[in-house]
C-alpha cells in the first residue's frame, strides 16, 4: 500500500483580506477585518497587532482597534481573486488542486525533481507568484494535504516520513473542527499526537465518522489523492490567410470552413457554445472583435452565418456614413489575414430538445434568424426585448436586454414570486403607452399665470390650468390628479429621487404623466 502523497501546498496568509485589497482596493497594510455574520473571519497583520482575532464580534474588534476597516465576507470575491494565483502556480508546476480560496496544493514530486530539490521548487513557486500577482505566499511540503497545510502555516518542509512526529506536537484545534476540538480538550486530549494515540475503533464508536476521518489525518495517514484542476481545453480555432480576404463572399467561404472546424472541436469534447467571439485581423493590424450571443445552441451553420454578417458589416457596410449612429468601426484599409473564433459560455451538449407541440420549433427558429440578421446589421445591442420588473415608474419597471441574452429584470417585480417586494406607490393601471427615456422639461401655470408649486406637505399652490412643454405654446389642462409623492432611495444620497407625480388631461384629449422634482416640471410619459 502506498503512503500519503508527498504534497506541496501554497498558502496565502489572510487571503480574504488580500482579496478585498485586490478586488475592492481596501489597503491590506491598514487594520482590516473581514466579517461574516458579525464575526471576524480574517484580519490583516496590522489589525492582529492591535489585538483583533478570528471569531471576535464586530463591536469587540472595533473597541480593540478603533480605526479598523470592516469588510463583508464574500466567498465569490475570494475565489475570483485567487484565480490568477492558481494560474501563476500552474505556469511553474502542473496538476494544481485548489483546496480553498487562498490555498492550493500540488504533488511535490514532479516540481521537486524538475527544479532539483523541494526547497528550490518552493522558492521558485513563491517567487513566481510574488512576481506575477504581487501576492505574498508561503509553501509547506509534507505527506498529505492536511499536513502540508499545517506545514505551510509554519513555512516548513517536512522531510519524508517526518509527518507524524510533526503533527504530534500540534494542538487539536489544527483539525479545524471546533465542536470536536472542544470535546477533545475537555477530555484532556490536547495535541494531535494524543488524539492519534487513541484506538481508531473507539474513536469511530465514540465520536462518529467525521472524527474517525480526523483521527486518520492526525496520525498523518492522509490518503486522499489530489483532485488536480484540469486546465480548460483550448477550443479556439484560428486560420491565417496568405492571400488577404477583401471580398465578403471569399471571407464567408473561409468562415464556413472555420465554423465547421470549431463545431467539430466542440463536438469532440461533447460541448456546445452559447456565445461566440469572432475576431478578424487585417493586414494592417486592425482588429475587429465582436461577441455574439444565442440562447439556443450555435450550430455550424449559425456560426458561419454570424461570421458572414459581421464581416459583411465590416467590409461592405461601412461605406455609407451613419449620421447620429453609434461609432461604427472604420472600414478596414486592407484585407483580412486572420480569423479567429473563440467559443464562450461553453456547456455540455446534451442534445437539443424541441418543443413537443411545435410552439418553439420552426417559427421560433425563423424569428431568431431574422433578429440575428438585424443584429448583424445594427450590432447586437440594437435588438432588444423588454423584461418587466419591479419599480414605481414605467421607466424603472422595464429593462431592455439585448436579444438572446438572459431575461432577468433589474429589480424583482411583484409577479416574480410571492415574496417579491410589493412596490407601494406604483402608478395605477392603465400604464402609459409611450414612456419617454429622457423626460421633457415643462412648465405648469395656474389660472393666474403663476407657476404651480407643491409644498413639503404636498399642498398644491393652485390648481394647474395650463401646461407648456418645452418652447411650445401652453395648452389648457382640463383634468388633473395628484400630487402622488415618491421618495426613493433616500438612504443613498447619490441615487435618491424625490418627486411628486401628476396625471394631467389636456384639452386636445391627450393625457400625460408629469413629475415635479426640485421645482422643475417634466413630462415622464404619455398616455397615448
Amino acid at each position, binding site marked *: 500500500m502506498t503512503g500519503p502523497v508527498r504534497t506541496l501546498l501554497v498558502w496565502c496568509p489572510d487571503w480574504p483580506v488580500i482579496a478585498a485589497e485586490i478586488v475592492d482596493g481596501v489597503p491590506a497594510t491598514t487594520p482590516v477585518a473581514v466579517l461574516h455574520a458579525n464575526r471576524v473571519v480574517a484580519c490583516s497583520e496590522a489589525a492582529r497587532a492591535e489585538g483583533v482575532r478570528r471569531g471576535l464580534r464586530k463591536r469587540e474588534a472595533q473597541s480593540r482597534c478603533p480605526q479598523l476597516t470592516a469588510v463583508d465576507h464574500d466567498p465569490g470575491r475570494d475565489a475570483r481573486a485567487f484565480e490568477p494565483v492558481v494560474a501563476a502556480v500552474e505556469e511553474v508546476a502542473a496538476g494544481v488542486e485548489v483546496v480553498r480560496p487562498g490555498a492550493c496544493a500540488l504533488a511535490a514530486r514532479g516540481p521537486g525533481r524538475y527544479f532539483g530539490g523541494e526547497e528550490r521548487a518552493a522558492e521558485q513557486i513563491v517567487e513566481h507568484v510574488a512576481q506575477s500577482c504581487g501576492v505574498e505566499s508561503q509553501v509547506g511540503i509534507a505527506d498529505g494535504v492536511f499536513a502540508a497545510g499545517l506545514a505551510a502555516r509554519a513555512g516548513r518542509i517536512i522531510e519524508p516520513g517526518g509527518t507524524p512526529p510533526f503533527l504530534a506536537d500540534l494542538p487539536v484545534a489544527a483539525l479545524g473542527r471546533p465542536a470536536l476540538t472542544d470535546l477533545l480538550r475537555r477530555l484532556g486530549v490536547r495535541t494531535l499526537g494524543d488524539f492519534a494515540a487513541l484506538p481508531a475503533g473507539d474513536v469511530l464508536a465514540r465520536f462518529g465518522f467525521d472524527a474517525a476521518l480526523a483521527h486518520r489525518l492526525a496520525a498523518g495517514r492522509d490518503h486522499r489523492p489530489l483532485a488536480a484542476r484540469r486546465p480548460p481545453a483550448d477550443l479556439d480555432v484560428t486560420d491565417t490567410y496568405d492571400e488577404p480576404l477583401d471580398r465578403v463572399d471569399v471571407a464567408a467561404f473561409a468562415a464556413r470552413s472555420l465554423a465547421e472546424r470549431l463545431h467539430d472541436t466542440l463536438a469532440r469534447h461533447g460541448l456546445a457554445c452559447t456565445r461566440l467571439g469572432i475576431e478578424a485581423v487585417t493586414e494592417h493590424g486592425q482588429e475587429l472583435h465582436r461577441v455574439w450571443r444565442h440562447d439556443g445552441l450555435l450550430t455550424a451553420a449559425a456560426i458561419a452565418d454570424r461570421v458572414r454578417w459581421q464581416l459583411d458589416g465590416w467590409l461592405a457596410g461601412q461605406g455609407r456614413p451613419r449620421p447620429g449612429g453609434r461609432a461604427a468601426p472604420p472600414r478596414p484599409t486592407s484585407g483580412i489575414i486572420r480569423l479567429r473564433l473563440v467559443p464562450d459560455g461553453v456547456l455540455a451538449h446534451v442534445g437539443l430538445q424541441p418543443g413537443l407541440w411545435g410552439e418553439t420549433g420552426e417559427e421560433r427558429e*425563423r424569428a431568431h434568424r431574422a433578429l440575428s*440578421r438585424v443584429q448583424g446589421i445594427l450590432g447586437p445591442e*440594437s*435588438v432588444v426585448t423588454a423584461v*418587466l420588473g419591479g419599480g414605481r415608474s414605467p421607466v424603472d419597471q*422595464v429593462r431592455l436586454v439585448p436579444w438572446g441574452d438572459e431575461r432577468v429584470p433589474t429589480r424583482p417585480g411583484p409577479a416574480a414570486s410571492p415574496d417579491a417586494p410589493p412596490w407601494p406607490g406604483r402608478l395605477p393601471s392603465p400604464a402609459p403607452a409611450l414612456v419617454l427615456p429622457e423626460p421633457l422639461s415643462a412648465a405648469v401655470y395656474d389660472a393666474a399665470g403663476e407657476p404651480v408649486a407643491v409644498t413639503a406637505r404636498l399642498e398644491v399652490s393652485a390648481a394647474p390650468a395650463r401646461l407648456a412643454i418645452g418652447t411650445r405654446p401652453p395648452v389648457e389642462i382640463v383634468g388633473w390628479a395628484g400630487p402622488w409623492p415618491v421618495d426613493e432611495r433616500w438612504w443613498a444620497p447619490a441615487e435618491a429621487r424625490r418627486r411628486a407625480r401628476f396625471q394631467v*388631461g389636456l384639452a386636445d*384629449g391627450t393625457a400625460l404623466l408629469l413629475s415635479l422634482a426640485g421645482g422643475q416640471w417634466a413630462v415622464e410619459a404619455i*398616455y397615448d
Partner: protein
Amino acid sequence: MAGRMVVGATALSAVAAGLVRPASEPDPAGGHRLLPVVPELTALLPNRGLRRGTTVAVSSGRPARGGGSSLVLALLAEASRAGSWCAVVGVPTFGAVAAADAGIALDRLALVPHPGPEWATVVAALIDGVDVVVAAVPPGLAPSVATRLAARARQRGSVLVPYGPWEGADVTLQVMRGMWEGLGQGRGRLRRREVTICARGRGAAARPKEVKVWMPGDGATRAGGAPHPVRTGGPRPASRRAALTLVGGTA
C-alpha cells in the same frame, strides 16, 4: 349519454389548454393565413383578423391625435397571445408595461428602437422571420421603398403594420377621437378612454367603417394572460363569441 359528456368535457379542457384543434375549425391552410385580433377590432378588418401578407397601417392622423400607440398594442395583443412573433421598429418610447397589460407576450416581442438609416433593410429582414412587424415610418420615405416592403410582406406572409403616413395599405386604421375618463379636478385617476377608430382601405375594405371602443378594454376576462378564457359548466352567458364557437365544435 354520460360517456359522451365525459368525452366532451375532456375535449373542452384540451381545447382550453390550446393543445387540440377541434375538427370543425377551419382547415390550417386557411386558418393559419389569419392572425386573430381582439373582438372589438374585428369589425374594422376585412377578414375579421390580420390576414397574412397584408399591410395594415395605423395612422396618427392630421393633426396628430393621441391613441395610435394604444391601437397598435391592441392590434398586436391577440396575435401575440396566440403565439405569433412580433417586432416593433423605430419606437424608442415603447411602453413595455402597457404592452404587457394589453396581453402581448414580451418574450416574443423584439424591439429595434433605433434602426437609423438602415430602416428599410431592418424592416425587410424582420418581415422574413417575424409574423407581425410594426414599423414607425420615418419622414420622407420613398414610395418605392414602401411598395417593395409591402410586396415582401405579401410574399413572406407577414403582416406589416406601418405606424405613420403610408400610401397603399390594404387597411388604414386611424384614431379619430379619444376622450379619457376618470380624471377630475385634483382627484381621481385615468381609468379608460373612449376611442373612435376609423378604417378605410382597398377592395373589401373600401367603405370607411367606424367603431367606438374602450381602451384599455373593459372586459375583465381580457386582463389575464390566459388564452381564450373558456367557461365550462354552469349557465353560460351568450355574449362571448369564442365560447359559442366552442360549443358548436364539441357538441
